């Protein structure tokens, strides 16, 4: 930059260098991960497959995830659905989806009226800061949905 003919040209050169760097970064990242990754579209397709095309309604379901995750290799997740869990009013299945792991599926939990409470806890992997979606299928065939935004500082290592 010392050899720049004028400060203005130096700034311009620096700007162009940085701009080129920014433009190349996503390309590099894509090449580096190298495999088909789940996208919001893939997640929507996986959800359609789960619900059979029915539109899930929000409410009556809670998805608990820490908003800020330091280690994506083990993220505690709790899904709870408001339900009496009686023979007529119960939760049949709970599915969890993500939008940026290599695959959109996380898990499907099968419950019965004998489960007592519609609440499941587990630990999952998250490859990036993203949206996690939970869908519950109730006994009457309707669907409920909840979502959670998660910021991941150390991603679950896909590359090593």
């Amino acid at each position: 930059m010392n050899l720049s003919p004028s400060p203005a040209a130096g700034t311009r050169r620096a700007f162009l260098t940085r701009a080129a760097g920014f433009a190349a970064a996503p390309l590099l990242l894509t090449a580096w991960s190298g495999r088909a990754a789940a996208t919001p579209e893939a997640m929507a397709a996986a959800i359609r497959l789960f619900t059979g095309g029915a539109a899930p309604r929000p409410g009556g379901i809670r998805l608990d995830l820490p908003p800020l995750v330091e280690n994506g290799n083990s993220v505690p997740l709790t899904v709870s659905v408001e339900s009496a869990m009686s023979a007529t009013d119960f939760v049949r299945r709970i599915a969890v989806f993500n939008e940026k792991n290599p695959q959109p599926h996380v898990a499907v939990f099968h419950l019965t009226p004998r489960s007592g409470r519609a609440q499941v806890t587990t630990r999952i992997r998250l490859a990036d800061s993203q949206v996690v979606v939970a869908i519950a299928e109730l006994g009457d065939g309707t669907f409920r949905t909840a979502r959670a935004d998660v910021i991941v500082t150390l991603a679950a290592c896909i590359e090593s």
Partner: protein
Amino acid sequence: MARTLINVPKTAKAGEVVEIKVLIAHPMETGFRPGPNGQILPRDIVTRFACRYDGEEVFAADLSPALAANPFLTFTTVATRTGTLTFTWEGDNGFSQTETANLVVEA
């Protein structure tokens, strides 16, 4: 045999909702990571977990590579009568393991 941790209350009242926690030592290799030689390590995960209460399935889970290593699950069931809880994990490469626990239900 993989190590398991199973947490079931020893006794419960009839009709009480009991919380069950299960963990199995398993690497849950995702099938997306390169190994030391640069080759992608083949997928090796637990694909299904089921809990049976006196033979009747009360909880099951289909798992994917997005579950953390050593998959840990917490769920509930209604204590109906004294009986045996059977926990089964099935996975890739013919992985299969069954553990049992007893639950005593007091009147």
